Each structure stands twice: as structure tokens, then as C-alpha cells.
């Protein structure tokens, strides 16, 4: 299979959907000639023109609001939010307007909108350009949340998102834009709510999202060398969540660590861990552990920043202790 970068995969998904459906348009800052600072959208304005690849002023709440209204009236906007951190600027339009319109109108209005943004630290971008804020969005009923972990997922999930009749927020991992993966030439879609078992194992389940999938896979390699068999599962979307697949895996392995780059407290890891606790408790041999970003604003200094995010070594160390039957409860579980 040919290999393309995550940027190219997103670009292809958008181009294919824009050819298929003339109501799809892109709106955001420097999306046209500049093709975004990450160059993800390069070439699209040449094909689709400035009426469908729309550059805006630096007015996030404004263009998000315009997208919501456009979506309610027959368009399918793909909003480009340059950094996930800017979600805080558009929260009202996203959470009070887009998320609730369908419900509040008794099902009469809908908001088929995609918000493309990103997550991820360790780019030395400091506290306002490094956050992973998907849990905030996942908390609001009415919004769907997709977390692609490679170019393959990025393309398939984007196409599904554009065809979905609800507001969908897609978080891409900034560090992955130039990373390649096998992506078929033929068209494919990845349905929401279907987890992907990346690696089979019998001793422990590592449930990992987005940027943390590679971390979990590397941890599984380390563990394999020591004779510990780890299963790695990527939920791919956290709303909807493929709870059945996660429970099935945990029933088999009887142990789990949930790894996600959002802050650990009140986050995605907590949600998944408590669902496993509620629904697979009697199959567990150890408490389900959470590993998220440390509960601190992301520091600029490389010496500090690298401590804030889970690492393969940290995951492996915790997995080892769980498998050995050592209790880790009560400690701050983090990058180790």
C-alpha cells in the first residue's frame, strides 16, 4: 500500500468530499494561499476557489458562529481552528449553539459541521499552544469527538465526519502531520464508535488515544521483550465510544491502563477507567490505571515539558507493576 503523511491524508479526504458534495466548504485563518501554518490544506484553494476555501480575520468566535449558521441552513462547513488551545475562544458557539441546536429544536434543526483542530505537547510551544482539550468537548452532549492516531485514521474519520449530520470535532496530533502511514488509494470510510485493536495480547490492555497510541505500542514492545503480553486498543472516537470492545479486551487480560494526552484529572482516562470499573469489575485483577498529562500548564522549558506527558518507559513501568500484582493506587501515576 502507498504511504502518505497525515497532512496529505487530511487534504485528500477534504478534496474528495468537496468534489462529491458542493455544500462542503472550509473556513478559517490562513487556510487559502497559505494552506494553514502546518500546510495541511495546500492546493485546495487552487482547485475549489476562495468561495469554498475561505480565509478569515483572526475572529474565532465569529467564523465559528458563521459556520454554525451555515450548517443549519444547508451547507457543510469544515472549520479550521489553528490550535486546539483556541477552543476556549469559541466555546459558546460550539457548546451552547452547535451542540444543542438539534435537541433544543426537537430534532427539527441540525448542525452538520466539522471542527478540525489539534492537540499535543512536546513541540516547545508553551502553555497556550500545547494543550490537549478533547475531554472538554467530549463532556458536552451533542458533540462527537474523533482522535485519529495515524494518516489512515485521519482520512477515514474525516470523511465520516463530513457526512455526519452532527457537529464533529476532530483533533489531529500536531507532531504527526509529517508522519507517513499506509493509506489505500481506493475510497474508504472509518465508522465512528469502532475501536481498533492495534496489537493483541493476554496480560494487560493498554487503551490509548491519538498521540498516545504510538506510546502504548512502544511500551508493548518493551513489555514483550520481558515476556509480558500487552494488548493495545485505539478507540478512534471517544464520542461515541466503543465500550464493548474495551470491556471485551479487559475481560480477557484482567488489567488495563488508559493513556491519553489530556490532563489526567477529570479527563478521558478517568471516564474510560470508571466505565471499566462499572462494567468489568469482577473480571479485574488490578485497579485500572490512568495516565494522562500532568495536571500543570505545559511548561516551555524542554527540561520540564518532557516530564508532563506519558512515555513508553513510564507506561511499561506501570504495566510491569500491575502485572506483578503491586498496588499503585494512591500514587500520582504519571510519566514516571
Amino acid at each position, binding site marked *: 500500500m502507498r504511504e502518505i503523511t497525515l497532512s496529505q491524508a487530511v487534504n485528500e479526504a477534504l478534496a474528495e468530499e468537496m468534489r462529491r458534495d458542493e455544500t462542503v466548504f472550509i473556513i478559517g485563518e490562513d487556510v487559502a494561499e*497559505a494552506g494553514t501554518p502546518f500546510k495541511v490544506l495546500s492546493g485546495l484553494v487552487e482547485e475549489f476557489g476562495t468561495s469554498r476555501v475561505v480565509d478569515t480575520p483572526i*475572529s474565532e*468566535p465569529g467564523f465559528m458562529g458563521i459556520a454554525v449558521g451555515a450548517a443549519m441552513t444547508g451547507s457543510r462547513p469544515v472549520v479550521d481552528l489553528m490550535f486546539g*488551545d483556541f477552543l476556549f475562544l469559541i466555546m459558546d458557539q460550539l457548546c451552547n449553539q452547535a451542540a444543542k441546536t438539534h435537541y433544543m429544536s426537537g430534532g427539527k434543526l441540525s448542525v452538520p459541521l466539522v471542527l478540525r483542530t489539534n492537540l499535543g505537547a512536546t513541540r*516547545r*510551544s508553551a502553555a497556550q499552544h500545547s494543550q490537549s482539550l478533547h475531554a472538554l468537548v467530549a463532556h458536552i452532549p451533542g458533540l462527537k469527538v474523533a482522535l485519529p492516531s495515524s494518516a489512515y485514521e485521519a482520512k477515514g474519520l474525516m470523511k465520516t465526519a463530513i457526512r455526519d449530520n452532527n457537529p464533529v470535532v476532530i483533533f489531529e496530533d500536531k507532531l504527526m502531520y509529517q508522519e507517513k502511514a499506509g493509506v489505500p488509494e481506493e475510497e474508504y470510510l472509518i465508522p465512528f464508535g469502532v475501536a481498533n485493536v492495534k496489537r493483541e495480547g493476554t496480560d494487560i490492555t493498554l487503551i490509548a488515544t491519538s498521540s498516545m497510541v504510538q506510546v502504548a505500542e512502544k511500551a508493548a514492545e518493551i513489555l514483550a521483550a520481558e515476556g509480558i503480553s500487552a494488548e493495545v486498543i485505539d478507540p478512534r472516537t471517544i464520542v461515541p465510544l466503543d465500550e464493548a470492545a474495551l470491556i471485551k479486551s479487559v475481560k480477557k487480560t484482567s488489567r488495563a491502563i488508559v493513556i491519553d494526552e489530556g490532563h489526567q484529572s477529570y479527563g478521558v482516562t478517568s471516564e474510560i477507567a470508571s466505565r471499566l470499573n462499572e462494567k468489568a469489575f469482577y473480571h479485574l485483577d488490578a485497579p485500572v490505571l490512568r495516565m494522562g498529562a500532568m495536571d500543570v500548564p505545559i511548561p*516551555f522549558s524542554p527540561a*520540564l515539558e518532557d516530564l508532563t506527558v506519558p512515555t513508553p518507559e513510564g507506561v511499561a513501568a506501570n504495566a510491569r507493576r500491575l502485572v506483578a500484582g503491586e498496588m499503585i493506587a494512591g500514587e500520582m501515576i504519571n510519566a514516571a
Partner: protein
Amino acid sequence: MYRQMVRIRTFEDNANQLYLSAKMPGLTHMYSGEEAVAVGICEALKVTDKITSTHRGHGHCVAKGAEFKEMFCELLGKEEGYCRGKGGSMHIADQSNGNLGANAIVGGSMGIATGAAFTAKLLGRDDVTVCFFGDGATAQGLMYEVMNMAALWNLPIIYACENNGYSEYTKTAEIAAGSITGRAEAFGIEAHTVDGQDVLAVNSLTEQLVERCRKGEGPFFMELMTYRYHGHHVGDINREYYRSKDEEKDWRDNKDPITKFARHLTSEGIATEEELKAMQAEIKADATAAVEYALKAKYPDASEVDMHVYAA
């Protein structure tokens, strides 16, 4: 003022070099070309006056009195940096000189600046606050909310819009409808447009406005016409798709604020060329020493990572 402008230019040349030689983590936005704006304004302020700065903030920081050593340490994420390495280029703050901080959210400091002016009024201090922001930031709704309140309450604040013609890779004309000063005038705020390459013009206008702010006549608005020599950030190297090399050359060759002011100083007999050259050399040596120091300085200890999340 000449000294401060040269210090900013020299600081930026060194910062750019640190980026190009991969010694600096992350990206940074160069202030070169806009020196007369920060210096003309900050020279009209007292240490106790406040400023808020932007992602392109090194110039404001130097102009408000910061030291090279602590600044380079911050850019390199070292413990002795102004923010103990936690902030970096886009978050430099220098409390000791009234710099409330750079901001990585465009327009993000407009509320903060207006709040600082609110404190001054509330507590009866005579501080004035200058809010620096770019032309691109005028697209943020927050600006209109706070200008409205500042005007209603006569707050001692000057909104200083650095119009360098671009917001990222887009020309200002494509993102701003109508006039920039007209935005402030709609709230009844007195607004001025000034040549941001002319440090004397910037300084004398600011002195007048600061004085009037202290008398309770604020707020005011300034639009400063200027230009950034480098890319939007240090990594923005191939930029001909959005602006021409000729345009860049014209600003550098014909409108440079430092050259322009040097000409004034020598023709008026205030300084000789030799004196200015000597000053440049001295500043260069200062910067080199500060960079060397910062390169060798210690990173913060791992124990600092969860320190300062909450105030005591």
C-alpha cells in the same frame, strides 16, 4: 532611545541565530523593523506604568527595561529566565518593570491591559497602561468589549495597534474592513495614526497621551504604521507568495527606524557616527556575553514542574 532600539535589533539578531543554529527550542517572532514603536512608547512611561505585550514581544520587553541575560535564559528554557523557563519567548513577563507579559493568544492581553488600568483608577494610582497588539488582533471581539468599557469609565489606557501590514500570511487590507482608528472613534476614543518608524514622533505623541491619561482623560488609541523585516516567525523563510522581496528591501533600505534616528542624531550634532558605532559594538558584546551565559545556564530542576500551578 537609540541605545534601546539597537538593543532590540541586536537581541533579535541573536535570537534568530539561536533558532537557525537549532540551539533554541520552539519558534519565535522577530520584532526587527518595529523598534521605534516599542521604544518611542516605553520611553514615555515610568517603571510603574504597565504594558501588555504580544507573541512578537521581545521588543516591548527590552524597551520596558528588561535585561538580556534573563531574557536569553527564558528563550532557552533556563532556570534564571524571567519566568524560570516556564514561559519561553511567547510568554516573557517582567514584573519588575511593569511588563505584565507577552501573550500567545492574539488579542488575549486586551482584557488584562484594561484591567490593569481599572486597578490604577480603583486604587487611585497614577499608572498608565499601554496595550500593544497587532493589526490582526483588531479582528478579536474582545477588543470592542473592553474599549467600550474603558471609554465608559475613562480608564487610563492607551491601545497601541502596531500595524505592520500583515497578520501572519495575510495582508491587513484583506482582514480589516473600514479604518482601524475608526474602530476606536466609534466609542468616542480619541485616535491617532503615527509613523511607527519615527521614534521621535511616536515618543512625543505618547508623552502627551500619557500625561492626559494621568489627568483622567483616557482612554486613547494609537495606530502605528510599521513593518516586520523577518517572516511571521523565524521558520517563515519562503514568503514570496504573500509579499515581495522588493517590498521588504524598500522598508529596510528607506524606512529603517534606527538609521533614520541615527541620521537625526548626527545631523543635529547630538552624537557622532563614531559614538554610535561604539555604542553598537558595546551592545553587541553585551548580547554575545548574555547568549553565552544563557547557553551554559542550568535548566530548572525537575521538581519545578508542578510548582507555581497555584499561588500560595
